[in-house]
């Protein structure tokens, strides 16, 4: 009978909290959007599935051994933890949890061994998260693969479109102001590190967003990643109204001259040029832009095709599977169901909107000073969201002028936006860490 009772008390129906039920529904919603609506399925299928796994009651898949031990809350375990943390024996669970969260890395690693002594172990998704994201490796490897899939030809044919990619990053920083404003008004409790991590949603670039938030605000990573990928999928809905509002019919009809031919040598030299500028000006962006340029160099140099193929296929796919499941581990109910998540979702869409607007306005500004007119619709592609935003530019352009193919022209600002948000990521990580954030 004990066993039967035990099985029932270990079953999900007995243990499930309302929060977990909500999060399982959220996971199913993400799967629905990914599969039926084609919302960035490569990421949202693993994230949604991982989110459901993380909320299976009693399985503790997203918990560390210490979390599991604290959840078990056996008196012996709590006493041992309290001793290690320098609390008095008999401290409350809350006190132990609090002391653990503020303990130094060495004390935490001691508790981790202690939890193992009591027979607790890390959950599967927690291990995936540690290896893939906490180490920083998965976003960097994906960025390398993206680099190996990126063609800088259109950008090299018209380098001044880099300015469009720069302007669109204003979405990032405006969002940071929004987040600190919410904190100032007392609506939310975002630290400056949180604000920076939320801002990066405006970079419209998944791996960059995950990399930054894993460093600056790991507890918000789930919400930030979900917002970033969802809004990237929604770019065809978010951007066109803004683009139309800020441009005249005439401007949208501007036809651009065909791009010049770019030689193989220029394409090989470009990632090296970027790398050297990073080395000279912005070391803090070196991991992200370094891996990106490495991927691109492998693609363009033509002598390591087998490495480039692997970076674009097996390696990026394997990494994506584990990255997605790991992000899903951050959709555990106790972390995700927080008013902050609503703040993040609200700020994220503002970030996309402002980035889009600034890209378009920058294109109009540049037209004031330049002979070769840009069609301002390609400015919106500067937010990145590769290649979706460039396709949106093309589609809106075709509405105004059915003979005007903007796709290639929009690819320039599109990939410029990737570089732009990696630069913004680097400077934010460096500044926030020196602010003691």
């Amino acid at each position, binding site marked *: 009978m004990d066993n039967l009772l035990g099985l029932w008390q270990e079953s999900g129906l007995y243990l499930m909290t309302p929060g977990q039920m909500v999060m399982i529904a959220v996971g199913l919603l993400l799967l629905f959007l990914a599969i039926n609506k084609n919302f960035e399925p490569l990421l949202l299928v693993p994230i949604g599935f991982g989110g459901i796994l993380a909320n299976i009651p009693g399985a503790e898949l997203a918990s560390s051994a210490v979390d599991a031990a604290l959840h078990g809350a056996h008196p012996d375990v709590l006493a041992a933890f309290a001793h290690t943390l320098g609390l008095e024996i008999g401290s409350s669970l809350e006190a132990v949890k609090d002391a653990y969260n503020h303990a130094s890395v060495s004390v935490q690693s001691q508790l981790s061994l202690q939890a193992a002594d009591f027979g607790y172990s890390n959950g599967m998704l927690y291990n995936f998260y540690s290896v893939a994201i906490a180490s920083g490796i998965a976003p960097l490897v994906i960025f390398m693969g993206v680099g190996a899939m990126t063609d800088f030809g259109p950008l090299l044919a018209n380098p001044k479109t*880099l300015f469009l990619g720069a302007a669109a990053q204003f979405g990032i920083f405006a969002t940071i102001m929004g987040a600190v404003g919410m904190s100032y008004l007392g609506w939310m409790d975002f630290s400056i590190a949180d604000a920076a991590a939320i801002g990066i949603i405006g970079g419209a670039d998944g791996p960059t967003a995950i990399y930054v938030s894993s460093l600056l605000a790991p507890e918000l990573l789930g919400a930030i990643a979900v917002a970033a990928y969802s809004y990237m999928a929604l770019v065809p809905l978010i951007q066109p109204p803004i683009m139309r509002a800020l441009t005249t019919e005439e401007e949208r009809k501007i036809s651009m001259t065909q791009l010049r031919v770019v030689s193989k040598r*220029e394409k090989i030299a470009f990632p090296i040029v970027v790398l050297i500028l990073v080395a000279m000006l912005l070391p803090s962006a070196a991991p992200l832009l370094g891996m990106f340029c490495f991927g691109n160099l492998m693609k363009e140099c033509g002598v390591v095709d087998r490495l480039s193929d692997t970076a674009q296929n097996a390696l990026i796919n394997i990494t994506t599977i584990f990255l997605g499941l790991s992000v899903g581990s951050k959709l555990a109910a106790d972390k995700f169901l927080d008013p902050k998540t609503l703040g993040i979702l609200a700020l994220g869409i503002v970030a996309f909107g402002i980035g889009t607007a600034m890209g378009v306005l920058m294109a109009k500004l540049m037209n004031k000073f330049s002979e070769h007119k840009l069609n301002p619709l390609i400015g919106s592609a500067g937010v990145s969201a590769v290649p979706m935003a460039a396709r949106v530019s093309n589609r809106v352009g075709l509405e105004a002028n059915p003979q005007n193919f903007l796709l290639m022209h929009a690819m320039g600002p599109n990939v410029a936006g990737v570089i732009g948000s990696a630069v913004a990521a680097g400077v934010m990580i460096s500044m926030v860490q020196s602010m003691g954030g």
Partner: protein
Amino acid sequence: MQESIIQQGVDLLIFGMGTVFVFLTVLVIATLGMSSFIRRFFPDAVAPVTEPAPTTPSNSVDPRHLAIIKAAIEKHRNKQ
């Protein structure tokens, strides 16, 4: 503290956005320099053709080739 977080946000905005613009401006200049240097001193013997289609990062197999291969298989099967 409340003042300070606004101040920190403004700092991030100014220096962050500034760095992005400075870096990309330098990159524009460096790229133009690099391109003109290469086009002047190391022109390609044969002019390469720019790819006619955009990069589609999420699709690793050229769909046209796929179509051709499928058609070939189909044809072969029909013959049997």
